């Protein structure tokens, strides 16, 4: 010390050294600081000498303490020395350049680690937490608490001073850049908790997947509400995390991400211990800073306002960039999501087509030539299969992060898919050509005239039921049956009309479409439908018509026209209603004009106004078991002189009203009867 050797104890030496160091730092900016330090050192040496001379063997820590006290501590200089023109460093009571003690830490905004204003990271440094967690809390407050989080943040941004703070040391929540499917959120969380990423991916995706599969094939329509709202929440949480959490790119960050073992208890312990220390000192600091603020208010606001505006402007750019990046990625993944949906539906079509018997039906009954069948398969593969494979490949590559050769994939698939479009168009063209003109074949069936003037119509054979012969189609379907070779339909229309003469006639009309008139005619005539007399007054109709696969389905129709002479009768058995037209593939209602009765062939054209698709059943408006009389107008009249239209046109509605009225009347009659019976029995008693 000053060129002299003085005996000194170790602990004393340490404090002396620290003191000299603090002096050195304090006076570093001062002009002539070397001289000052020399002077002070000399003084210290002098004081130490005194003590030695007084009899001490060595300088003790206590000696040093009193020496330091007499010369003065650095903090005391600073307090006494606060005035402009001093070139000392601003030296506050906390000893900024010396090691910060946890007991006296203040709440600053962290300049070194800020996304917007460093509020969250500053608060995190104060609480000794991972800044990402504080950001999450703020984000939740901002989004969920009616924006109160945003207001709080801005207030803190303005009023809390900024300082460069030390980086948070501890386990941090990052997004994992090495193992990211979408944003790396799930794997980051997984690393933090030392678990496998798929657990968290499952958690995040669970509501979405559940809502997708909770309906059956019609998941697009039948999304359950509960799962749907959870889906939205989870997606929102994921987005928030994506924006807020930093991504671990450097090795150091990755180490931080994996950190030492962390569990919630230790986090809580850390936070609690620190908070207890700080709440008391923080309270004192708050009152002190509050009084200081009120003193400097005007000056503070003007400078602060300016710097805040500038900071906000600067912060806005990276936030916008980051937000833009997130939105861009979002769009990308939204499109990907749409792609997945399309792929899924294509997949379902593919599945149902190939593995169900649907292909059987399509191939057998609609496509007839081998060329068409090949075209059909090509269409399926190229039009449906290729985009499906393409999308799946795309997703797999994305997930595995394969980047090579993407260009050729895209081109190849596109070309194949265009091929699929061509096949599809060709197929449609071919098939619609098959459904060309419609031809009708009429056949006059020989029947015996009923002697009692009443023809009884019945269908003796059992009604057609679906025999469940197709693997994919199951169910109770009546009036229609199909297997690989044969299709049967009970869609036979029975129409009574006025006979041109005094005889009963039965005419069976068969119609079908074809690629040409001749083909249509052939096909129509190949429809098998028959009827026969059971007795002279009972006419039995076939339960349905049959088409072979060889013929192919071409919207075949069968109409049985029964011509009843004027004033003669006709009765329909219940079986007619039960067994015929209970499942009518394509009921045709055509406007039947009396005058054109003999020109039905013309009426059977395929003008769209003649094709009136009506799915209502029953089509007939007459009732079983009633003896109807043919009127001059071609309508059937029952015993009560109610007319029932025998042709189906706009009068249908009137007839149905009649039907309702009739059934109401019947009900009223029955109630009346019962009432009468009750009264009778009461009288008897």
């Amino acid at each position, binding site marked *: 010390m000053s060129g002299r050797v003085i005996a000194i104890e170790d602990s004393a030496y340490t404090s002396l050294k620290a003191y000299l160091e603090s002096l050195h730092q304090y006076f570093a900016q*001062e*002009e002539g600081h070397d001289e000052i330090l020399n*002077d002070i050192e000399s*003084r210290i040496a*002098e004081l130490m000498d005194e003590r030695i001379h007084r009899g001490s063997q060595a300088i003790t820590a206590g000696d040093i303490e009193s020496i330091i006290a007499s*010369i003065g501590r650095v903090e005391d*200089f600073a*307090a006494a*020395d606060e005035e402009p023109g001093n070139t000392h460093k601003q030296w506050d009571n906390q000893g900024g350049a010396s090691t910060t003690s946890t007991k006296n830490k203040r709440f600053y905004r962290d300049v070194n680690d800020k996304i917007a204003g460093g509020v969250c990271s500053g608060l995190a440094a104060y609480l000794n937490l991972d800044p990402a967690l504080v950001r999450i809390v703020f984000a939740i407050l901002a989004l969920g608490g009616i924006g109160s989080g945003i207001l709080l943040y801005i207030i803190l941004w303005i009023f809390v001073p900024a300082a460069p703070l030390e980086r948070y040391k501890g386990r941090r929540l990052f997004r994992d850049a090495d193992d990211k499917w979408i944003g790396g959120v799930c794997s980051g969380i997984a690393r933090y908790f030392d678990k496998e990423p798929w657990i968290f991916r499952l958690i995040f995706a669970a509501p979405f997947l559940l809502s997708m599969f909770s309906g059956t094939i019609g998941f697009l329509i039948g999304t359950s509400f509960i799962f749907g709202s959870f889906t939205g929440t989870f997606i929102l949480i994921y987005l928030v995390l994506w924006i807020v959490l930093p991504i671990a790119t450097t090795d150091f960050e990755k180490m931080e991400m994996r950190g030492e073992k962390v569990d919630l208890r230790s986090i809580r312990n850390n936070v609690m211990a620190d908070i207890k220390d700080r709440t008391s000192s923080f309270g004192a600091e708050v009152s002190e800073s509050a009084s200081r603020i009120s003193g400097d208010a005007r000056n503070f606001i003007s400078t602060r306002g300016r710097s805040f505006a500038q900071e906000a402007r600067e912060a806005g750019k990276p936030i916008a960039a980051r937000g833009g990046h997130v939105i861009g990625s979002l769009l990308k993944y939204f499109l990907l999501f749409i792609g997945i949906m399309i792929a899924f539906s294509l997949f379902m079509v593919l599945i149902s087509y190939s593995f169900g018997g649907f292909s059987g039906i399509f191939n057998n009954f609609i496509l007839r030539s081998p060329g068409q069948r090949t075209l059909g398969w090509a269409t399926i593969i190229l039009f449906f299969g290729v985009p499906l494979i393409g999308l799946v490949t795309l997703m797999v590559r994305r997930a595995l992060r394969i980047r090579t050769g993407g260009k050729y994939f895209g081109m190849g698939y596109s070309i194949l898919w265009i091929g699929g479009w061509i096949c599809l168009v060709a197929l449609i063209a071919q098939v619609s050509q098959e459904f060309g003109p419609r031809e009708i074949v009429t056949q006059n069936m020989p029947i015996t005239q009923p002697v009692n003037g009443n023809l009884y119509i019945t269908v003796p054979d059992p009604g057609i039921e679906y025999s469940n012969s197709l693997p994919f189609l199951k169910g109770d379907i009546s009036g229609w049956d199909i297997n690989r070779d044969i299709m049967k339909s009970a869609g036979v229309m029975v129409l009574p009309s006025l006979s041109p003469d005094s005889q009963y006639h039965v005419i069976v009309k068969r119609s079908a479409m074809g690629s040409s008139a001749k083909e249509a005619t052939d096909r129509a005539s190949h429809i098998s439908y028959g009827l026969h007399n059971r007795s002279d007054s009972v006419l039995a109709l076939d339960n349905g018509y049959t088409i072979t696969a060889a013929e192919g389905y071409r919207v075949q129709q069968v109409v049985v026209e029964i011509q009843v002479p004027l004033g003669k009768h006709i009765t329909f058995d219940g079986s007619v209603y039960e067994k015929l037209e209970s499942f009518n593939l394509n009921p045709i209602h055509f406007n039947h004009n009396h005058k054109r009765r003999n020109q039905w062939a013309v009426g059977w054209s395929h003008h769209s106004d003649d094709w009136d698709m009506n799915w209502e059943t029953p089509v007939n408006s007459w009732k079983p078991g009633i003896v109807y009389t043919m009127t001059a107008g071609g309508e059937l009249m029952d015993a009560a002189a109610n007319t029932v239209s025998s042709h189906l046109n706009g009068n249908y509605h009137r007839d149905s009203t009649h039907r309702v009225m009739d059934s109401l009347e019947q009900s009223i009659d029955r109630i009346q009867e019962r009432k009468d019976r009750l009264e009778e029995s009461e009288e008897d008693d």
Partner: protein
Amino acid sequence: MNIDNTQSQMRKGIHEFCILSIIRQGEAYPSDIVEKMRAANLSILEGTLYPLLTRLKNAGMLSYRWVESNSGPPRKYFSLSTEGETFYKELFTTWQELSTAVNLLTQAS
């Protein structure tokens, strides 16, 4: 408001003048100056004194000489220079004006 701050501010303003007065009375070394200040009830820290002396010296108001001592390291003995003397005289005038003003104001209340 912190009274200590105000008080130290008041004292700080007068330190220079007092130190110059002491040195004017005779050559003095720092710890001597500190003792005299303390005796006059205007204590000052040595850590504050040393920089002040150095500043004054660098400004040419003071000069010093080294004096060897038998008990300890050599000491700096400060004395007032001619510029320092002029400086002091002006400060003395200021002080007189100040004290008159303050006395007037305090008596009025």
